[in-house]
């Protein structure tokens, strides 16, 4: 091996060792800024999540969408949602029985409140009262919908930031 090559290899190795050692020793000073998200304890929501506010129910029976009042779900504030239920060919489902639950999958707890559908607003719209989110992060809201003897569930994901 040429003398020059040896020099280059030694230089590279020493540089790597010095940088690694410095990072390890300075970790408490640097803080979480340069850590991999996995090491930060604060897991982000899985990136593959469907965050849309309108999609097909789990078994494809209904097309469902939600809106919130105020339009972005607020933190720590009880508020209402309206959900719209229609058939896959776009006909509003006017006589659905709907129950609500949800929670934070990463924390293993449910919603802080027990929201309910309190009013059938007609034209496939239903008023959901008692919605509340008390933590920032990824939430799931699930609806169980029964209409004309058929039941299906749908899960919406949302992130409070």
């Amino acid at each position, binding site marked *: 091996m040429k*003398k020059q090559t040896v*020099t280059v290899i*030694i*230089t590279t190795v*020493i*540089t790597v060792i*010095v*940088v690694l050692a*410095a*990072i390890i020793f*300075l970790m*408490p*000073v*640097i*803080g*979480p*800024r*340069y850590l991999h998200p996995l090491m*930060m*304890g*604060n897991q982000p929501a899985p990136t593959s999540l469907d965050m849309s506010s309108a999609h097909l129910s789990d078994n494809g029976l209904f097309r469902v969408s939600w809106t919130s009042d105020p339009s972005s779900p607020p*933190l*720590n504030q*009880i508020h209402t949602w309206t959900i719209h239920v229609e058939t896959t060919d776009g006909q509003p489902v006017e006589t659905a029985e709907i129950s609500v639950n949800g929670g934070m999958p990463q*924390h*293993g*707890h*449910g*919603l*802080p*409140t*027990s*929201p*309910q559908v309190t009013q059938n607003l007609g034209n496939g719209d239903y008023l959901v*009262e*008692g919605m*509340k989110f*008390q*933590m*920032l*992060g990824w939430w799931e809201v699930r609806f169980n919908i029964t209409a004309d003897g058929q039941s299906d569930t749908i899960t919406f994901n949302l992130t409070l*930031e």
Partner: protein
Amino acid sequence: MRRAYWIVGGITLIAVAIVLWTANRPASWTEAEVATLRSLWIGSLPPLPPDPSNAYADDSQAAAFGQALFFDTRFSSNGEVACATCHIPDKMFNDGLPLGQGVGRMTRRTMTIIGTAYSPWLFWDGRKDSQWSQALGPMESPVEHGGTRTQYAHLIDEQYHAQYESVFGELPDFSHRARFPDVAGPVDEPSAHAAWDAMTPADREAVTQVYVNMGKAIAAYERAIVPGPSRFDVYVEALLKNDKEGMQTTLTKDEVAGLRLFIGRAQCIKCHNGPLFTNNEFHNTGAPAAEGLPADDGRASGVSKVLEDEFNCLSQWSDAGENDCAELRFVTSTGEQLEGAFKPPTLRNVAESAPYMHAGQYTTLAKVLGHYNHPPHAPLGHSELEPLGLTANELAQLEAFLRALSGVLIVPPELLVSPH
């Protein structure tokens, strides 16, 4: 070979310089972090929310009357206990004790009243759903004020007749002592309870109406007690104005590092969120049972109590319509998540609020942070905490940040002293 040494030495120096530079350069915040900091900033605190359950909430005469009641020790069984006995204005409306001390000793620590106008739930277990109904709980508790509502009605009649009537209208005539005994109320003490049961429903209502109005007046006073800005708030204000110098002179590097942990890896912000640093909901953090006391089931019992409370939002004594009571109507009343769950207290002025947790189990902030770093098994239910793996240095930074959350109250000084 000589040249090789030069190369190695040079590169080592450069590497060290790069690492030191990245470690020491001033903290910068991402856009998402700035949004989070803004959400914690006192400037994000909305105007006082209305209290539809209390028609007198914003009545200044009611507030003045309420302040007089707040500081009046005659409203107790021994003449020595007022609201201000435990909610001491000079101590940020806390008392500095592990367990509240009225005519007897309580099983939980006194909570501050600062900012409670923003909370849908009151007390550690949320067994009350308004400031006015909260104020009435201790008045008839055998270990707090220890009195009864007929005693209080007589006191109002004798000491505050004109002031009461100027706010709430005519006082009923309580002079008939056989109809309105000196000591009677729906309390634990059997003879006072029996005397209460012996009264006619109409007489009981007349007394309870006065009692309810006392609560509404006290609440009108307490509504005005809101937190003032801390150094943290000055820092966020500087950040929002992009005033780098202001930021650097307001918080130390350690405090900023602690703040970064607070909203990041330490996950404090999960529950201590919003401008009051609390979500006012209920969480099991596995705080150990207090010495000599049984494990406390917290919200599990608290939710049953608020649903049955004679003074809740849906009660005849509330001025709210059904639609104003969404928190109560849609409350989660069952489930394991309520077991051993307590309301996160505000972290504003936390350095002045020792001891900590619902029964003063920890005497210092360092011990509290140690608890969150290495969470023990919950004495009841399941703790929501996960080990944080923070270093001693990081815990010290977090504590430094928490100490930057203190700020003097900016309420008019006359509200912080007894009007008597």
